[in-house]
């Protein structure tokens, strides 16, 4: 309980610090391009339910779908590459060749193949996130000392048991870190992909407000994106606390 209070206080202090910084910048510049935070929050209260909520829901859905798809593909691939050296020998060159390609550059092709709707946006997030998951899991498994497996191998344990008792728990911290890094990337990518081919999503909302020179609404969108990130990161922290209890000791 005490720990939770300390954590909450740290979050609140962080927010307060950012707000003070924002307020100072607004007071210093005195231009509509940096409005005062109190005005932005006032506007947010007015338009959240009617205007922003639907855009936030669309963005959240795209992030979750893209990351889920990346986990579905990347998790088994990372485990296979980390545990089976032979598989890694053949798959690693493929990963190394495709990982550095800027996926955003593939967006035109993706839009032609998957359309300009939901699918291309989700696939774009998937493409960017999946490599991070694969590499984090593979390296996580490689970092497990050989001796960890000995008691299980000497008992004749099969892959299923090794997977359950060693691979999953040992790679969990790496996996969660990969998701955490991927999440931030996903939000940035999402913003870009939502600027065309859709009328929903936080990217669309912010760009639309900017083009209408409605800076107050533009800032409400930025605040919502930031809060979305806070929510997702917070959920991951809770998940990590529950699943990796042994690491906190």
């Amino acid at each position, binding site marked *: 309980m005490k720990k939770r209070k300390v954590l909450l206080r740290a979050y609140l202090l962080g927010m307060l610090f950012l707000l003070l910084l924002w307020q100072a910048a607004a007071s210093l510049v005195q231009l509509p391009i940096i409005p005062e935070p109190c005005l932005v929050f006032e506007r947010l209260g007015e338009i959240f339910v009617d205007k922003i909520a639907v855009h936030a829901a669309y963005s959240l859905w795209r992030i979750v779908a893209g990351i889920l798809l990346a986990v579905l593909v990347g998790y088994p691939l990372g485990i296979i590459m980390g545990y089976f050296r032979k598989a890694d020998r053949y798959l690693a060159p493929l990963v190394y060749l495709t990982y550095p390609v800027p996926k955003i550059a593939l967006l035109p092709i993706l839009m032609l193949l998957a359309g300009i709707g939901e699918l291309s946006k989700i696939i774009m997030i998937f493409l960017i996130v999946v490599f991070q998951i694969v590499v984090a899991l593979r390296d996580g498994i490689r970092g497990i000392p050989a001796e960890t497996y*000995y*008691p299980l191998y*000497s*008992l*004749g344990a099969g892959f299923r048991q090794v997977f359950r*008792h060693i691979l999953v*728990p*040992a790679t*969990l911290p790496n996996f969660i870190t990969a998701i955490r890094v991927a999440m931030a990337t996903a939000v940035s990518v999402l913003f870009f992909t939502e600027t065309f081919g859709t009328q929903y999503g936080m990217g669309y909302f912010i760009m639309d407000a900017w083009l209408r020179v409605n800076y107050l609404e533009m800032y409400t969108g930025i605040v919502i994106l930031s809060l979305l990130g806070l929510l997702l990161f917070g959920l991951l922290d809770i998940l990590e606390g529950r699943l990796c*209890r042994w690491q906190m000791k």
Partner: protein
Amino acid sequence: MIEVKNLAVAYQRLQQRNIALQDVSLTVPQGTVCAVIGPSGCGKSTLLKAVAGLLHDYSGQVRINGHEFNPQKLRIGFMPQNYGLLPWQTVEDNIKLACRIKDGWSEAKSGKMQELCRKLGLENLLARYPQELSGGQQQRVSLARVFLLEPDILLMDEPFSALDAITREEMQDVFRDLWEEAGITTMLVTHYVEEALYLGQQIALMSANPGTIAEVMENKWQGSREWKTTTEFFVKSQELKEKIKAMGARKR
């Protein structure tokens, strides 16, 4: 009974073929402890790994209780140097692990587990994680795990080497008490001569380069606390140390 016949292990390193073990033959009779001792790098741990089924690339024969080695059918208790505890599992789960893997956990084993934990003083540590325990406590958890399994054979790779002198002696006594009740055929790799003399009914002395069994000695005083304080024990341990030193020098 553990029977090792003409065991040879070689490995490739930087285009050079190194022979780790050559023509190793050793028989550990049923219900005895064989302490394997020798200079550093003589292949003690490699021998243990071969018996545990952790090495596949070897020639020769390893037979357990008269049968070809088969980890699926056998119950092998293996205690590595670092205790082999999984840091993400609580003490309770670590103790249950070997049984879970071998035949699944059943409540019938709870009684035996409770008894073992009481003997080893682990009752109040069950909810903790290994990293919250001292080296001696981790060692106790590892012992509880292998003795709960009731293995056909027990293989220990320098199990007490990471402990301080006092805890090491204490743990040797704990092991000896458990072993006397269970009477499991045990192969114990150690680099402590005193440990070999105290715990091994049979002492297999290995020489290095290539690793092989140089001598097997019978030790009728095994397990006797009184013997540990006698001059004879001291003389015997000095003799053994001299032999190991000579083997190490020959290696160079």
